[in-house]
């Protein structure tokens, strides 16, 4: 039966796994772990960093993930880089001199975001709708507006996103694939969509979370690491699932543990 394990319980947890003869070759990381590691303003950044460095890296536990993770990571950076770039572009100290109407459009969305940061503790990152609204204001100016928007995307996204993507290599993450001969030894079941649907249907967990738990079930890897309560509730609701490790504060906020 799967458990939700606190980071602080890891030493004892690992010891027990080894005592029971479980091989701890690797673990599966949720995208939110990778994003939180990479972006220091994120809540739980320090705890996640210390845990991955001092417990996972130190114990030479390899990191695995699903292909969705890169998409989620790059999507996070698309919005972060555009937010930081556009907010810097309209700052009084900026060397850029954008058209006044475009500055107003960025400022309007930025103040909505600022409000969300102040009152909801949200990350300083535009959501997709806000980015679309800003883009629309540029595209309203015809071809010249489109060229200007493209130039901004080029400087704020093209190279920076490549750098963010390359940075992932340092984590030496292996993407789980049943079709990779090198990974045959860690797969003991076939990954199917039907099983992911079944896991999702337990508590209505998101599909990227269901995919992680599904992939975990199909491998010999004993646990996944996440910051998302969906994984915890899934594990708690279905005794056939494996373990998930989380920061203590996340576990403490989960009901009925």
């Amino acid at each position, binding site marked *: 039966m799967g458990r939700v394990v606190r980071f602080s319980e890891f030493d004892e947890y690992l010891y027990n796994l080894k005592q029971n003869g479980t091989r701890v070759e690797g673990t599966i990381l949720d995208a939110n772990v990778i994003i939180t590691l*990479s972006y220091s303003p994120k809540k739980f950044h320090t705890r996640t960093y210390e845990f991955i460095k001092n417990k996972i890296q130190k114990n030479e536990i390899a990191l695995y993930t699903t292909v969705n993770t890169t998409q989620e990571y790059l999507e996070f950076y698309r919005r972060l880089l555009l937010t930081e770039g556009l907010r810097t572009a309209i700052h009084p100290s900026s060397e850029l001199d954008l058209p006044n109407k475009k500055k107003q459009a960025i400022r309007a969305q930025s103040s909505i975001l600022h409000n969300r940061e102040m009152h909801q503790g949200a990350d300083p990152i535009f959501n997709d709708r806000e980015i679309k609204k800003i883009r629309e204001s540029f595209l309203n100016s015809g071809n010249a507006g489109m060229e200007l928007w493209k130039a901004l995307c080029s*400087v704020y996204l093209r190279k920076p996103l490549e*750098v963010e993507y390359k940075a992932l290599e340092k*984590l030496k993450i292996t993407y789980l694939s049943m079709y990779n001969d090198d990974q045959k030894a860690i797969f003991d079941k076939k990954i199917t969509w039907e099983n992911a649907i079944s896991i999702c249907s337990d508590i209505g967990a998101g599909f990227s979370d269901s995919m992680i738990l599904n992939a975990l079930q199909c491998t010999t890897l004993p646990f996944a690491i996440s910051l998302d309560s969906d994984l915890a509730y899934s594990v708690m609701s279905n005794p056939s699932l494996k373990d998930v490790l989380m920061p203590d504060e996340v576990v403490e906020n989960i009901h009925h543990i």
Partner: protein
Amino acid sequence: MEKKNISDVDAFIEEAEKGRNMPLSKEDIKRINDLSREVEKEESEIEDDVISIVAIEKNDSESARF
């Protein structure tokens, strides 16, 4: 079993920070400012056109009254 890949968390964080701190080049700044001026110019031309159309329409309707 494939060879174990052990991560380097510090190197990952350091590299990820670099993506967020890439300065704009002089050429990028010039290009964006040139394009911005072009947008301003087009917008003011459209505004001028709108003003003249409104003025013509106003004149037309005033002439029609006499």
